[in-house]
C-alpha cells in the first residue's frame, strides 16, 4: 500500500516538473520543454496583457513577444526570484513600452460613448452598489468603458495602477520591475488615483449631460 502511494508520488513528480527543472532542461538544449513552461504561465501573462490592452490582437502579440524574450534571455534568469515574477516583469515592461508608443491625448478619449456605454454609466450613477456589482459581469460595455477610462491615463499611471491594484504588488516590487525609485512609485500611484477619479467624474458627468439632452 505504502509502496503504491510512493510510486504514485514519484510518477506525479515526474509528470509535474518544477519551473526550475524545466528551465534546466531548456538550458541543456531541450527546447521542447519551453512549451510546457509557457503553457503553465500563459494564462497569467495573457490576463496581465489584457489589463493593459483591450485589443485582443495587441495583447496576443505582446504575450508572444514576452515568451520570445523570455526564451532568448533564459540564461540570464536568476533563481532567486520566481519564474512567474520574472515573466511578469518582462510582460509589464513590454506593455509599458507599447503604451508609451501608442500614447494618445486624454481629451480625445472621453469624447464619445456608445449607447450601451451610456446605459452602463447611468446604471453606475443611479443603481445601488449591489446592483452595480451584479450587473458588471454581464455587461461587456463595462469592460470596454473601463479600458476607455484607463486609456485616458498616462502610461506610467496606468502601469502603476495595474501592478498595484490588479497584480497586488507592493511599492518595492513595482519599483524593481519598472526600475524606478520607491518614492516615484508612490507619487505615481497617488497621481494615478487622482487622475482616474477625475476622469471617472468627467465620464459620469458626460453621461448625465447626455441623458438630459436626449
Amino acid at each position, binding site marked *: 500500500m505504502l509502496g503504491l502511494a510512493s510510486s504514485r508520488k514519484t510518477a506525479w513528480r515526474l509528470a509535474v516538473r518544477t519551473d526550475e527543472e524545466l528551465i534546466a532542461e531548456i538550458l541543456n538544449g531541450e527546447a521542447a520543454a519551453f512549451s510546457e513552461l509557457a503553457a503553465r504561465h500563459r494564462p497569467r501573462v495573457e490576463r496581465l496583457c489584457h489589463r493593459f490592452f483591450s485589443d485582443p490582437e495587441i495583447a496576443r502579440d505582446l504575450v508572444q513577444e514576452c515568451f520570445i524574450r523570455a526564451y532568448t534571455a533564459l540564461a540570464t534568469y536568476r533563481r532567486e526570484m520566481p519564474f512567474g515574477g520574472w515573466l511578469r516583469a518582462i510582460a509589464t515592461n513590454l506593455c509599458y513600452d507599447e503604451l508609451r508608443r501608442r500614447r494618445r491625448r486624454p481629451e480625445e478619449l472621453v469624447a464619445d460613448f*456608445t449607447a450601451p456605454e451610456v446605459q452602463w454609466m447611468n446604471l453606475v450613477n443611479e443603481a445601488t452598489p449591489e446592483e452595480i456589482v451584479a450587473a458588471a459581469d454581464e455587461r461587456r460595455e463595462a469592460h470596454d468603458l473601463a479600458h476607455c477610462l484607463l486609456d485616458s491615463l498616462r502610461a506610467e499611471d496606468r502601469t502603476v495602477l495595474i501592478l498595484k491594484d490588479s497584480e497586488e504588488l507592493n511599492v518595492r516590487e513595482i519599483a524593481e520591475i519598472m526600475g524606478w525609485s520607491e518614492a516615484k512609485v508612490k507619487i505615481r500611484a497617488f497621481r494615478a488615483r487622482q487622475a482616474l477619479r477625475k476622469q471617472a467624474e468627467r465620464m459620469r458627468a458626460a453621461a448625465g449631460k447626455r441623458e438630459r439632452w436626449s
Partner: protein
Amino acid sequence: MINCFEARQEFRAFWRRELPAERRAALVSHLAGCSKCDRSFRNFALGAPVLHSVGEPPQRAVAESQSARDARARRSGGVVRGEFVPRRGLAMSAAAMVLLAASLAAYFSVTTPVDTLNDELSVDPIVSQIPSSDLYPSSEDLAG
C-alpha cells in the same frame, strides 16, 4: 458601523464578492449614508471591470471591443486597423485655416476705393494734363 477609511478598503473585496455577509451589509449601509464614499464607489466601479476583475474579460467584450474601439476612433480620429482616420479637431482646424486663407486672399485681391479713385483720375484725359503740383496743395501753401 464602519468609518470612511474602512469602507474604501472594502471596495475591492466587495467588487470581487469576497466580503462576508456581515461586512458586506456594513459597507452597503455605510454607502447609503455617506455621499462621499458613495461617489467614490461609483468612480471605482467605472475602472473596476479591468482593474479589479478576477476572471477573464467577457468573451463578447473582447470580440466586439475592436469594433467599438474602431467606431470610437472613427468618431475622434486615429488609426483604425492600419487605416489612418483624420482627427475631427485636426480636420476642423484645417478647414478653418483654408477659410481664413481664402478670406485674406479675397480681401487683398479687391482694389481699395482710394486706389480706384487714383486710377480713375490718372486715366482721365483732362486731369492727366494738369500737373500734380496743381492738384495737391504744396507744403508752402499749407504753411501760408
